[in-house]
């Protein structure tokens, strides 16, 4: 026993366990005397360590809140909390193990057969829900630290750090390549770490690899998938104390699979008893952890596989009761722990059964890459063939030095209710036989019906035995029976690793902290943070604040940050041509100093975006887009430029410029304090634009009226954002200026019936339906959508976006159903309570014949219908007189 100085302690089921450095959770628990590590999925049979290689389901436990952790692959850490799963009250005494006496109630596929009547299901559901599944999902509070994603590249990625992988690394590195070696064990060496290997010395190999500067070694990391383009998914557990897992995306020019072979169990009755272990697991316990797992062993296996195992057991002081051939085993005996092996002619008492099992090439990655598999009877394995381009394999995964452990298909009848093929879901060979008799005689249907190979081990333990049973029972060869498909992730990956870090990128406008100081309540719009409204006083509600902001704009003056608008600067001789092509209106005839509204459609006549186009000079235009569509519009314009040879340069200034909208009857009085520009309507009419300094900062001024009042949209360099904002607020002080948020803006524009593309329209909306036919120039020689729009212009509309006013004082939700005569007829797109009307007003999709003044419709509000009246009029200032004042 090591001294206290190098003892690591952790907690298992509330008790403190001592472990040594180098221990896994499983080896430490085994050393501490734990023998039952789990209870089986269906029958709650006791299960102990089997593979010790992360390939079987037997040691899955909850570690630090994460369920189904492979404890044999998890290095111990001080203070970790480990609890068992799927057993009540304890692993040693599990009341639900009574289930195995009712196995006649649960034949193969029993849930398909018994749960056909809804009444049966509803009666059984609460019980089934409670006992089904494995492990308990953690609540967010149980997860500490942050998951991460990282990206890496290599010339050659070698998966597996055993002798073949290390040799490949040395030779690739000698050729000057950047090499990444990924191995799931804490140290390099593969099977050399626990078994003798002639002709190679492990310390030498490892030292050689570690001396190479162009070889990067990822130890204790597992590769779960090989994807197109040689992209490898790799999980790196605990790369630092605060990161439970990091998911590495490793792209390699070439992938070398050197994953070796793993061992899988032999079939005989009670082959799942505690103390029945694979030979490699026993060797790992002895050589890696210094644990002697028994006193008297029976070895099941064929010569010459058994001899080196027997020698190692003897050297460790384990007596060997017998070495028996797999075919001669009648059954294992024991209640929980194995006590004897019965063969056809003898009974051998023992406390350990060592299976020299099938050796399976660990070829999941090759299978995912598209390799096929050929049966090799002498090797007793499916050998990968037809490797995909850029992928190669070395070592035991290619079938090198493998020998058959037992005859396949099996020669004798393997039916047996306790001969477990699939340990994950408790599927016995009898279950497979029954399923085949029921007609599920193809390996893929057999898999899906019985769930063999579909549990946590993903077929590693059960695939080959299941194919053997299927082949024998259907009188086919192993080759004809075939293999089931391996898909990533293999092994499984936590959702945390896939999800990655728990943070979102955030974009803040240049005036963000001004808003914060003014009490902004935030709204997330994509990545942007925008003020929803400003809390003017402590305890003020949203409705009250929004109405105050609304009144400021209608009666005095308000200021809103519109920096999130897409802003494109277009320069060149041919900008007008481009704009004429991508917008449905005409812009080549726009005079410098003027701004025009533009609608953009696709070739099918669907509205893509809208915005303003300002001509600042003959060859200089400034275009705004809706916040969410900027990238699309930028790409759309560049697309239609390809190959034209037109003189157009597009620069995205969205982040480079801040923008505000100053609006209200007093807007001019505020602005003229800060600029020399003549703001009178005669000099600066509605829909005009100027370049002029405001508060000493050069700006683009556009006289627009989205909210329905005299106002200017002002664009200027982002770094001047806070200064210009403060200057405007200060200049507006005597008019009681108020900053206003999205809510007030939406209400103000709704009273003007201004449509927001993407809110009031959708991916099937054309401009005629939203009443924007006026913005189209259908007689233009050519533009995107011309053909479709000209056709649509001559057709009757099916539906229209119409205004409505509620008859009573209720507020429907955005998206509420419009009903006519009790039938669904449309939906509300936007609705707010209008202080002007004293009622909820809004926009809604209604059948075209209903879209006329005074028509009555019903709107679903709070589960009942409320009467609304359609109106064709603009709710506020229908002639737009206030815009032109």
């Amino acid at each position, binding site marked *: 026993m090591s001294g206290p100085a190098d003892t690591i302690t952790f907690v298992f089921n509330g008790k403190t366990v001592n472990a040594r450095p180098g221990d896994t959770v499983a080896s430490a628990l085994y050393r501490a005397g734990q023998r039952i590590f789990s209870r089986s999925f269906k029958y709650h049979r006791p299960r102990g360590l089997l593979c010790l290689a992360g390939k079987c389901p037997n040691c899955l436990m909850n570690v630090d809140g994460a369920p189904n952790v492979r404890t044999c692959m998890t290095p111990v850490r001080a203070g970790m909390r480990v609890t068992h799963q799927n057993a009540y009250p304890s692993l040693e005494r599990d009341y639900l193990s009574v289930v195995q006496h009712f196995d006649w109630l649960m034949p193969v596929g029993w849930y398909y057969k018994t749960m056909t009547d809804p009444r049966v299901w509803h009666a059984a559901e609460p019980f089934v829900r409670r006992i089904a599944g494995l492990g308990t999902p953690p609540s967010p509070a149980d997860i500490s630290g942050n998951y991460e994603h990282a990206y890496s590249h290599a010339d050659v990625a070698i998966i597996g750090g055993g002798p073949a992988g290390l040799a490949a690394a040395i030779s690739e590195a000698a050729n000057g390549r950047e090499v990444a070696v990924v191995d799931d064990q804490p140290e390099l060496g593969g099977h050399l770490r626990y078994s003798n290997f002639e002709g190679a010395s492990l310390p030498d190999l490892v030292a050689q690899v570690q001396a190479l500067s162009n070889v990067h070694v990822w130890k204790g990391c597992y590769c779960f998938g090989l994807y*197109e383009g040689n992209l490898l998914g790799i999980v790196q557990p605990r790369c630092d104390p605060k990161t439970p897992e990091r998911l590495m995306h490793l792209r390699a020019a070439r992938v070398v699979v050197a994953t070796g072979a793993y061992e899988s169990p032999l079939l005989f009755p009670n082959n799942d008893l505690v103390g029945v272990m694979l030979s490699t697991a026993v060797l790992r316990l002895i050589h890696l952890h210094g644990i002697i797992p028994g006193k008297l062993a029976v070895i099941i296996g064929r010569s010459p596989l058994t001899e080196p195992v027997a020698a190692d057991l003897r050297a460790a002081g384990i007596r060997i009761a017998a070495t028996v051939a797999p075919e001669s085993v009648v059954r294992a005996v024991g209640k929980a722990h194995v006590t004897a092996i019965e063969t056809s002619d003898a009974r051998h008492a023992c406390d350990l059964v060592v299976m020299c099992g099938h050796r399976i090439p660990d070829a999941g990655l090759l299978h995912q890459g598209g390799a096929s598999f050929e049966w090799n009877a002498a090797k007793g394995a499916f050998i990968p063939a037809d490797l995909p381009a850029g992928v190669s394999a070395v070592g035991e995964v290619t079938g090198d030095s493998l020998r058959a452990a037992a005859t396949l298909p099996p020669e004798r009848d393997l039916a047996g209710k306790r001969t477990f093929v699939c340990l994950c879901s408790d599927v016995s060979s009898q279950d497979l036989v029954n399923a085949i008799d029921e007609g599920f005689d193809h390996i893929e249907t057999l898999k899906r019906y019985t769930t063999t190979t579909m549990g946590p081990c993903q077929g590693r333990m059960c695939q080959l035995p299941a194919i053997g049973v299927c082949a024998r029972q259907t009188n086919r060869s192993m080759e004809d029976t075939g293999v089931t498909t391996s898909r990533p992730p293999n092994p499984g990956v936590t959702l945390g690793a896939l999800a990655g870090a728990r943070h979102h990128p955030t974009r803040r406008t240049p005036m963000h902290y001004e808003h914060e100081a003014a009490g902004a309540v935030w709204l997330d719009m994509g990545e942007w943070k925008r003020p929803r409204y400003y809390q003017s006083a402590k305890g003020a509600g949203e409705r009250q604040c929004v109405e105050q902001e609304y009144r400021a704009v209608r009666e005095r003056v308000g200021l809103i940050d519109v920096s999130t608008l897409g802003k494109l600067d277009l320069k060149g001789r041919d900008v007008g041509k481009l704009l004429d092509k991508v917008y449905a209106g005409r812009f080549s005839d726009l005079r410098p100093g003027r701004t025009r509204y533009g609608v953009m459609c696709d070739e099918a006549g669907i509205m893509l975006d809208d915005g303003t186009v300002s001509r600042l000079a003959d060859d200089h235009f400034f275009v705004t887009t809706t916040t969410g569509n900027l990238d699309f519009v930028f790409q759309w314009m*560049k697309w239609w430029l390809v*190959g034209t040879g037109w003189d157009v340069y597009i620069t995205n200034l969205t982040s480079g410029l801040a923008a505000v909208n100053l609006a209200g009857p007093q807007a001019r009085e505020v602005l003229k304090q800060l600029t020399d520009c003549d703001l009178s309507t005669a000099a600066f009419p509605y829909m005009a634009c100027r370049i002029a300094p405001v508060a000493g900062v050069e700006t683009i001024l556009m006289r627009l009226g989205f909210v329905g009042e005299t106002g200017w949209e002002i664009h200027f360099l982002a770094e001047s954002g806070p200064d210009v904002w403060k200057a405007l607020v200060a200049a507006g002080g005597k008019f009681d200026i108020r900053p206003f948020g999205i809510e007030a803006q939406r209400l103000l524009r709704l009273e003007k019936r201004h449509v927001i593309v993407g809110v009031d329209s959708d991916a099937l909306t054309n401009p005629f339906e939203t009443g924007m036919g006026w913005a189209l120039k259908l007689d233009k020689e050519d533009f995107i959508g011309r053909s479709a729009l000209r056709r649509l212009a001559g057709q009757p509309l099916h539906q229209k976006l119409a205004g409505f006013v509620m008859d009573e004082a209720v507020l429907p939700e955005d998206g509420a159903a419009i009903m006519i005569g009790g039938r669904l007829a449309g939906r509300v797109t936007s609705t707010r309570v209008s202080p002007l009307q004293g009622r909820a007003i809004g926009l809604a999709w209604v059948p075209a014949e209903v879209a006329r003044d005074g028509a009555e419709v019903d709107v679903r509000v709070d589960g009942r219908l409320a009467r609304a009246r359609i109106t064709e009029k603009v709710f506020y200032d229908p002639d737009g007189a206030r815009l032109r004042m």
Partner: protein
Amino acid sequence: MSFLVRCPQCGARSVYEFRFGGEVKRRPAPDAPEAEWTHYIYNRANEAGVQKEWWFHRSGCRQWFQAVRNTVTNETVESFFPDETT
């Protein structure tokens, strides 16, 4: 989906850096018959094999280009900046 697309300017990059622009099709003349426009707008060849496509290198040079891609293997056979919009 994790294949590489070869940008004529930046070389082979992860497909996540790109926006797919669909098959390259010839845009009908403005006054072409309705059937021709309908075919252009709504129909796709959707070849199982080699086809010419539009791609935009969103996280790179931000240029549109055309790639001849095998839709079965996802291999970029060739890619180039086209001379004219087709």
